[in-house]
Every structure is written in structure tokens, then in C-alpha cells.
């Protein structure tokens, strides 16, 4: 990991957020945790973020709305979705807007780490 690369983790559930954080850090990656989309968008070091892992259903701003905002701002960052209630519609919408992966909770940790590795390799 030569260059500084942050993995942004967005989830309103602290337990889930912490668990993903621990998982990613155990792989030797740096993380930044956010309780919602607004928090991420207000983050000062967005240029350091190499990948966003976000929950789909969150209060205030959903994962899809966050994705829309990211695209609108021209921020080229791969997004990985996680959701406890995956619907084909939400998946289609996310993939169409350029999402990197759409994962159903409970998430397979290896699959998530593979996806993150793929994302930051770009």
C-alpha cells in the first residue's frame, strides 16, 4: 500500500460499522467511518478515499442518494453496496449508476475484502 488510501465505511448501525472497520483494518488498510451519507460528503479528505462501502437503507440519506450525489459531484470513486434487504430494483439502479458491487447482508467477509482489493487496484 504505497499511496495513502482510505476505505470509507458508511452505515448507521454502529455494530456493523465497527465490524467492517475491524475487518478492513485486519487486512492492513486504513479506514474512515461515517454514520451517514452527509457525514461522508462533508469529509475533508475525500481525495484520499479509494473506495466507499455503504449501507443501502439509512435514515437521512439512502445509499442510492449518496451514490447520486457522488456522481453529481464528479467524484470518481468505486462504491460497494451492502444491504439487509436486497431488491432487484435497488440492485439494478445501483449497478446502472456505476456501483462496483451489490452485496446482501450478512456479507461474506472474503467477498467484501476481494471487492475492496479490486476497487483500490483500479
Amino acid at each position, binding site marked *: 500500500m504505497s499511496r495513502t488510501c482510505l476505505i470509507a465505511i458508511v452505515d448507521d*448501525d454502529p455494530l*456493523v460499522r465497527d465490524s467492517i472497520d*475491524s*475487518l478492513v*483494518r485486519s*487486512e492492513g488498510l486504513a479506514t474512515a467511518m461515517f454514520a451517514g451519507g452527509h457525514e461522508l460528503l462533508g469529509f475533508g479528505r475525500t481525495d484520499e478515499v479509494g473506495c466507499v462501502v455503504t449501507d443501502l437503507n439509512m435514515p437521512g440519506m439512502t445509499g442510492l442518494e449518496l451514490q447520486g450525489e457522488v456522481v453529481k459531484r464528479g467524484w470518481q470513486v468505486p462504491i460497494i453496496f451492502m444491504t*439487509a434487504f436486497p431488491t432487484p430494483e435497488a440492485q439494478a439502479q445501483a449497478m446502472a449508476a456505476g456501483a462496483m458491487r451489490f452485496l446482501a447482508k450478512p*456479507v*461474506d467477509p472474503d467477498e467484501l475484502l476481494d471487492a475492496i482489493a479490486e476497487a483500490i487496484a483500479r
Partner: protein
Amino acid sequence: MRSDRSICLAALISGLTVLALDIFSPLQGAVAVLYTSTVLIASWSNRRAATVMAGIACSVLTFIGFLYSHWDAPFGSPAMRLGVSLFAICMITMLSVRHRSARDTLAEQARMLELTHDTVVVRGPDDTIQYWNEGAEQLYGWTRAEALGQSAQQLLQTQATGDPKTVIDMVGSWSGEISRVRKDGRRILLESRWLARLDHLGRETGIFETSADVTQQRAEAAARRQSEERYHTIFHAAGLPMLEIDLSAARATMAQAGTVDIEVINRVAAKATVRDANDAAVQLFGVAGAQGLIGHSLLRFHTPAAEQSLGRLLRALAAGQRDIEEEAQFLTETGALVDVVLRLTLLEDDESWSRLLMLAVNVTERNRLHRRMAQAQSELTEVNRATTLGQVAAFIAHEINQPLTAITAFASSGKRWLAREAPDAVEVADCLNKIALSGTRAADVVARVRRLFRKGESEQTELDVQTLIRETAGLLDLELRESAVTLHLSAAPDLPRITGDRILLQQVLVNLILNARKAISQAPESPRDVWIDAFRQGDMVTVEVADSGTGLLSDPREIFEPFFSSRDDGMGIGLAISRSIVEQHGGAIQAANREEGGARFRFSIPAAT
């Protein structure tokens, strides 16, 4: 008596006087002829025996007088005179006796005229009233004294159809209907017979008439006719199918047979003929015209369901009911099946069942709608259930998947922290802590879901088990009737009430009854009965649903497990839901096979305290 005695005395005096004249008077001749006056006097007594006795006595006296005066020379002219006298006495006696009996007959007839309830009036040639009996007094209101001598026309204001006078002049008698006015001013209708009275020369001397009051009779007949016409109009103008049925022959057949089984029903039906049918009935049965029904039986329209209905109708009629309602199904001439509600009414006091009015209301459309509604309802219930289940599933999925995600991620990262060249014990401990925390959270979710379902929409009220069973049976009436399943309801008396959720317990009953119906339909050869019984067992009220179907093919304990089903189309969840509802009510449910075949489900709910 007094007059009898004086008549006797007068006859005696008259007899002795004639005897004295005969013996002592110088008169030569048939003095004895004068005895005839004695006989006549005796005949006034109105006694036949007295007259005859007087005749015999006078003959004896004549003979004594003859012997006394003519003992010396009995032959010749005195003997002739004796003969004449005896002949005269004999003749007078006979005439008197005959006159007597003629007078008796007349008196008898006059008394009869008085006694008759019919009115007897005699009018003279000038139309004056000459005779007026008691019947006339009662009918017209005038007493005999008031009526006699009056002009009949002025008094009675007779109005007749036609001209009775001309008819009487021609043929001597007339009969017909007349109207007259009574003393109270009311005009009445009479049936009258008039007879001309003729003298010995054949001249008319007046009219003898008898009459009877038919006012009420005519009014009743007119009312009856009017009522019949009105019935006829309603019958034919009604938009509802109506038939008039003659069951008199059928009744005899039934009385002979004694019982009412299928074979008897068919024989009876063959003899039940249609007397009349209106247009709506013609349309209902799909025949070309009323002639397609009148004179025939309805047997050719029968279906097995119609036979059952007819059996019930006949039993009700035999039991003395006069108004009966039954649902039946007929196959029309055009091959369509129609559902009808039959209403049978015995017309008049007809003990022979010769005229029954049958109203056949076509409820095919209503039943079809009912069925469609029931189907829609069950589809809706299904959708509701699916929606609710979907929502619950989504809730559970989300709430459980969150801690599950955390657990798997923590477990995976914990492994990684350990696998590092320098294992990080602090991170591993954190992972394990959080795993435990997530497990607790998942358990909380399960507890929350349980709580949600325990409270939910459940509404606890005191319930009467019998009412609950009856209402549920009512909901399924049509479905059961369509599968020709007979439901037998019974319950122990004085069942205590239970506390529970009416809708949920109804759901249990519906599940069990529909299961029973399914089991029956899978055993086409078996009888089609479902029995529901309710009884008390200690502090519990037990409801039993038994059927004559296939019985349970698997372990009776297994069938209450979710997603277990022996039926191809079964949701497999009905019995599981039933069990959870019953257990939620503090009760238990169990199933067993009946020795007679079929299955038996029992569930118990605690009695209300």
C-alpha cells in the same frame, strides 16, 4: 176432556131421544135414520173409535126399536125400513171416519208449513197476502198480522229477472232468483219457487211460493270468485317463477310407503304434477311454453341436490308444516344448472295436497356472486397473509441480518488479527466482545418479534363456543353444500364460556373444517359427513372436528409442524398456525384417526373464570 165429555153426553141424549121417538111415537117410517145425527155428534170428538162405537150402538138401538114395535109382524115394510136405517147409519159412520182422516192430513200439512224454515207465502189473485208462515216472519221481518191482507208487491217490492207472471200463466210454475226488501229496508236476494193455485175449474186462484235467502251465499261466492281471480292475476303477472303443484297422488304413495327414502322420493316426484305455471317459471325451466310444464312432473329437471331438497320438503309437509322453504338445484331443459330457493305453501285447507303453490326464486346469480365473493375474500386473506408474512420476513431479515453481518465480519477479522505475524490480542478481544454483543442483539430481535405477535391485533373477549361454531359453520355453508358435505353440529348443554380472540379461534375452526372437507374429497367412496362437537373436560372446553375422510396417513404429531403437509396443494402451514393460535390461548390441539375411519381433531381452550 171437558168437551169430549159433553159430546158423549149430547150423543147419548140424542140416541135415547131417537129411541124414544122410534118406540113411542106414532110415526110410521124410518125414524131410525135420525140416529145418523148421533153418529155425527160423536164424530165431533175427533176420535175414530168414538165414531165407530156410536155407529155400532145406534145400529143396536135401531134393532131393539124394531123388535119392540114389530115383534108380532117383523117381515114386510118394517123390515125394509130397518134395512134403510141400518144402511144409513153405516154409511154416515164410514163417511165420518174418512172425513176425520182427511182432516188429520190437512192439519199435519199446515203444521209442517208452519214449522219449515223456508218461507211459505200464499198470494191471492189480487196479489194480497193470504198466508204467511213463521219462516216468512223471520225472513222479511213482518209478523203474520202485519202481512196478511197487504199487497205483496207493495210490501216486498219484488224484483225478478224475466217475467214470472207470464211463465206461471203458461206453465203453472216458475223458479228463479228475486230480490225483495225486508221490513228493516235491506234488500235481500232470494231463490224462489212459485206455483199457481187452481180451483176445480182450472182457474188461477193465487200463487203459492217458497223462498230461501241466498244473499250471503251469493256474496261469499262472489268474494271467492274475486279472490280466485286476484290470485290468478298475481300468479301470472308475477315476475317470480310460480307453479301450482298437485301432490295428491304423491301423498297417497308416501302414505303407503311410510318412510321417505330416495326411492320413495323419486316415485313421489313422478306423481307430483304441475297444474299451472307462469311465464317466469317457463323461463326458469327453459321450456317452450307453459304446456311444457302443465300436466308433467318436475322429475326430468331433478339433480341429486333437488332430490335431497324434495325429501326434506315432503318430510316437512308430512309433519304438518304449511309453509316450507328449501334450497334446491334443477337442470333446465337447456342443460343449465339453476340454484333456486323453493317456497311451498299449501293453498286453502287442502288436506289432500292437491293444490300447492311453489315459488321458485332463482338464486343462481346470487350464489355465483356469493361464491366469487368468498373466493375473492379468501384470495384477499391469502394476499393479506402473504403481505403480512412478507413484511414480517423483511423485518426479521433486516433486524437479524445486521447483527449477523457484524458477527461474521468480527469473526473473520478476529481470525485475521490472530493470523498476523504479530497477533493483536486487543483487536481480537474487541472482536469477540462485539460478537457476543451482536448475539445478544439478535436474541433481542427475536424477543421483539415474539412480543409483537403475542399482542398484535389479538382481542380477548368472552366467547360462547356454540355461537362460535355456528357462525363459522355459516361462513362455510355454501362451500360445504357444493361438496355435498353434511355438517352435524352438537354440543353439551351448559358449556362454560371461554376467553379468547374470536377471529383467531374462528381461523382454527375454518382450518379444521376445510381440512376435513379436503380429506373427504380425497375419499370419493366414503360418506360425506363432518361432525363438530363441543364438551367440557375439567377446566377446559374441548371442540372436536371429526370427518369421514381418508384419515391421517402420517404421524399425528408431525402434522402440526410448519411446512408439513400430506396434501399436494396444501400450504402446509394451516395446522401449524392453528396450533400456535390454540397454544397462545393456553390450550392444546391434537389429532387422531377414528376407529370408524376418518380423522378427529380436538382442541381445548380453558374455560373463562
